[in-house]
């Protein structure tokens, strides 16, 4: 019986087929731990292999995003592995003529409790292959877990510490062409002409060809290959040098005069006008008018880049009748279907080998960089590796969009909100519905900027929850201060009577939002961070509480004033409810990483655009947070045995508002726009 999550060989080699992309979030370790526990093998007996893209095998479970990996595979993976375990036990029973209830699996061996009988899984394959798969198998009880809940160090950690992770950028084939592409610097622009004389004189350069998108109006999410000129060489350096030597005339098109400031202006205008309502609740409109006071504010966050440390790259070999691809991708299934559609070959002719990524954060969900390799390999019918330079990953990539989020509140005579109106990043009825506070709210259609888009969009760690979290958690804080109520108590008060928010969109159906779980993280955080007792020591605090894709997180930031308009962040305390924690070390690492990510976006230069062109060139102008700038981070998990939810992005959206709320507490200044320039944070 095939099991698409596990492969057992006659010599008892046990290979876990990880059907989720590893980009540092630790999913390969967590999922392997779940499989090892359910099957009855030791972690060091398991080899990990990444499944090739296959929607027929994994449905929507393989493409990796939205912090959904462990949450979505938890039931399916366990059931599949338990079925294999029970089948192996049945095979042993068949061989030994004993009863299944007297057998158990441990270390890759079926054991008979009442005798000394033992059989390695690999010895039972022949018999097992003749048996029908058992139905309604029993899953392991938490008390039987050997790995789940423990900080297991996975193979990916050991590989990285010795420099041996097999990123796609390391690939080399005989006869492979190394490609670099100079892409149109303005989104929507086109190539007018180019001169490749100098490029062709660079030692190692083999060929120069034009790259054309396969669709005339590529959607910015799907596809998005830009017009460009590719240099193909015998090594990466030669391709990069050849690319630099190209002389190209571009026609920037409609975006050639636009800047990010234009987009911000458009978004603010739209946020203040009466946009289409997307979710109208009678009660919200009825109650809104009855307020004693009204307050509104908008918040903005700029374009950002994912800036994965491993630059985008992919290798493709188009042989005419079949195509093989090697890439670190978050979407192996979508990529396969997409290449099938573009190249007119059936999905069965396309193999997407999914390698570990040097960071993904949402960018590697999109297939443009793979499409380029396929298009070039189709031209040359050789393996072609396309490597983006760092400059390419900033200047001609896809970006986290500019957002403006506008909240309006109707307040009673004590300053407590009775109704909201919201226009911004998140529509009411789509995706995960993240609003926990139980106050009737009218949602307007998300503010999209006017076409043509200035920059194409990519997902960026926590996606639209980032502007949503910034705006909602700053706004709630503003309301609390206006009402002269402690901001943490104010939130707990709002959550107390809030209804469970039913989730009606896949893949979140069945994982409803429980406001009391969020309230619980607030109460624990207040205790852990000594909320409200730091002022005598010069410590000012800010809080945020976020429900993101079925998990809950409160963050409290401690900062102090160290000089005129200079603040220092001392500590971030995060309290998380993400259900059962599979691997505490890795889960904690995700929270730590999310806090660093959020701080980077809050404090460092964003992506800016002038005359249609991104101004940031490299890590000298798109700076990342450095070691000395990271505050102390304390992470606590709410102890529970509910099914695991998600942890990869949870702590991103709450970081900026928690810091900005602390800045307000310290200085009385309300900052509503990212990045934070004044006061200065050290």
């Amino acid at each position, binding site marked *: 019986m095939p099991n698409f999550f596990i492969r057992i060989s006659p010599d008892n080699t046990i290979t876990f087929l990880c059907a989720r992309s590893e980009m540092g979030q630790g999913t390969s370790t967590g999922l392997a731990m779940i499989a090892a526990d359910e099957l009855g093998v030791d972690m060091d007996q398991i080899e990990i292999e990444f499944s090739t893209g296959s929607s027929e095998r994994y449905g929507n479970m393989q493409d990796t995003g939205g912090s959904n990996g462990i949450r979505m595979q938890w039931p399916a993976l366990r059931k599949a592995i338990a079925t294999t375990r029970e089948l192996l036990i049945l095979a042993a029973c068949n061989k030994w003529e004993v009863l299944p209830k007297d057998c158990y699996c441990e270390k890759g061996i079926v054991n008979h409790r009442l005798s000394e009988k033992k059989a390695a899984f690999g010895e039972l394959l022949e018999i097992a292959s003749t048996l029908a798969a058992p139905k309604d198998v029993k899953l392991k009880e938490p008390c039987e877990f050997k790995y789940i809940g423990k900080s297991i160090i996975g193979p990916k950690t050991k590989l990285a*510490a*010795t*420099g*041996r992770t097999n990123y796609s950028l390391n690939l080399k084939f005989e006869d492979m062409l190394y490609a670099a592409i100079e892409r149109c610097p303005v989104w929507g622009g086109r190539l007018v002409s180019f001169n490749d004389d100098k490029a062709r004189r660079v030692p190692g350069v083999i060929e120069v060809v034009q790259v054309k998108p396969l669709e005339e109006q590529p959607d910015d999410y799907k596809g998005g290959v830009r017009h460009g000129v590719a240099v193909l060489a015998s090594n990466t350096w030669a391709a990069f040098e050849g690319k630099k030597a190209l002389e190209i005339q571009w026609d920037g098109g409609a975006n050639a005069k636009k800047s990010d400031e234009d987009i911000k202006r458009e978004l603010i205008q739209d946020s203040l006008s009466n946009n289409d309502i997307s979710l109208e609740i009678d009660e919200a409109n009825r109650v809104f008018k009855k307020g004693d006071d009204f307050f509104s504010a908008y918040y903005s966050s700029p374009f950002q880049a994912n800036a994965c440390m491993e630059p985008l790259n992919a290798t493709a070999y188009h042989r005419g009748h079949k195509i093989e691809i090697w890439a670190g991708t978050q979407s192996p299934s979508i990529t396969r279907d997409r290449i099938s559609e573009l190249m007119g070959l059936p999905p069965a002719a396309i193999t997407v080998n999914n390698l570990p990524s040097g*960071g993904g*954060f949402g960018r590697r969900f999109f297939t443009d960089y793979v499409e380029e390799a396929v298009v070039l390999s189709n031209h040359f019918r050789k393996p072609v590796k396309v490597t983006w330079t760092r400059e390419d990953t900033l200047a001609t990539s896809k970006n986290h969009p500019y957002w403006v989020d506008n909240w309006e509140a109707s307040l009673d005579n004590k300053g407590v909100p009775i109704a909201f109106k919201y226009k911004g990043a998140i529509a009411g009825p789509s995706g995960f519905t993240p609003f926990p506070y139980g106050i009737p709210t009218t949602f307007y259609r998300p503010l999209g900027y006017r076409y043509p888009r200035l920059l194409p969009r990519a997902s960026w760690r926590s996606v639209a929850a980032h502007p949503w979290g910034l705006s909602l958690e700053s706004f709630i804080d503003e309301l609390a201060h206006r009402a002269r109520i402690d901001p943490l108590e104010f939130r707990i008060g709002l959550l107390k009577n809030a209804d469970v928010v039913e989730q009606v969109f896949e893949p979140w159906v069945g994982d409803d939002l429980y406001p009391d779980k969020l309230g619980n993280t607030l109460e624990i955080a207040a205790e852990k961070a000594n909320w409200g007792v730091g002022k005598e020591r010069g410590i000012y605090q800010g809080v945020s509480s976020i429900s993101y894709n079925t998990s809950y997180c409160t963050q409290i930031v401690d900062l102090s004033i160290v000089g005129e308009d200079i603040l220092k962040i001392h500590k971030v305390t995060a309290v998380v409810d993400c259900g059962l924690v599979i691997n505490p070390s890795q889960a904690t690492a995700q929270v730590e990483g999310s806090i660093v990510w959020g701080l980077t976006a809050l404090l460092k230069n964003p992506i800016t655009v002038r005359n249609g062109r991104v101004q940031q060139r490299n890590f*000298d102008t798109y700076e990342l947070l450095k070691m000395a700038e990271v505050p102390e*981070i304390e992470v606590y998990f709410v102890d529970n045995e509910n099914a695991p939810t998600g942890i990869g992005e949870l702590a991103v959206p709450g970081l900026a508002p928690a810091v900005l709320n602390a800045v307000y507490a310290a200085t009385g200044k309300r900052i509503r726009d990212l990045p934070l320039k004044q006061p200065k944070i050290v």
Partner: protein
Amino acid sequence: MKTIKINGEDHSLDVPGNVPLLWVLRDFLELTGTKYSCGIGVCGACTVLIDGKPVRSCSRSLDSLSNNNVVTIEGLGEEERLHELQKAWIENDVPQCGYCQSGQIMSALALLSVNADPSDADINQAMAGNLCRCGTYLRIRKAIKQAASMLRNTKNDISIKTIGNKGHKSLLP
């Protein structure tokens, strides 16, 4: 033909002299532990040691090397014979995506070779040129302190002993 010494072994190469050491290692010698990320010497992912000092290999041409001793992550340790830094990296579960970690470890190695007991400030300063997008900085600092302590306790000679390139297994399919 040019001969350079990497991890204690001589390599003869027929490569243009202006090619950066980074690409010599990656594309010509298949020592892919050293990583390309910025190409302008500001991110630290390509850090190697040249005569014991941390150097951004993206910014050093092949021509600029003569009798220098280059050490890369491949020369530091392998699974059966890990360097204390690698042991500490693993114990603290430092890497996330892992891409910057070869460079982080090489910079840490250079620090420990001149400072056996670095403070937080020493580490922050020595590691300021190594970026990590996943945000593993706090664990890196912890691991460096732990490795320093392990090295002090074992009274090991912390001069760099290389294991050659034998530990390098081809990752090619």
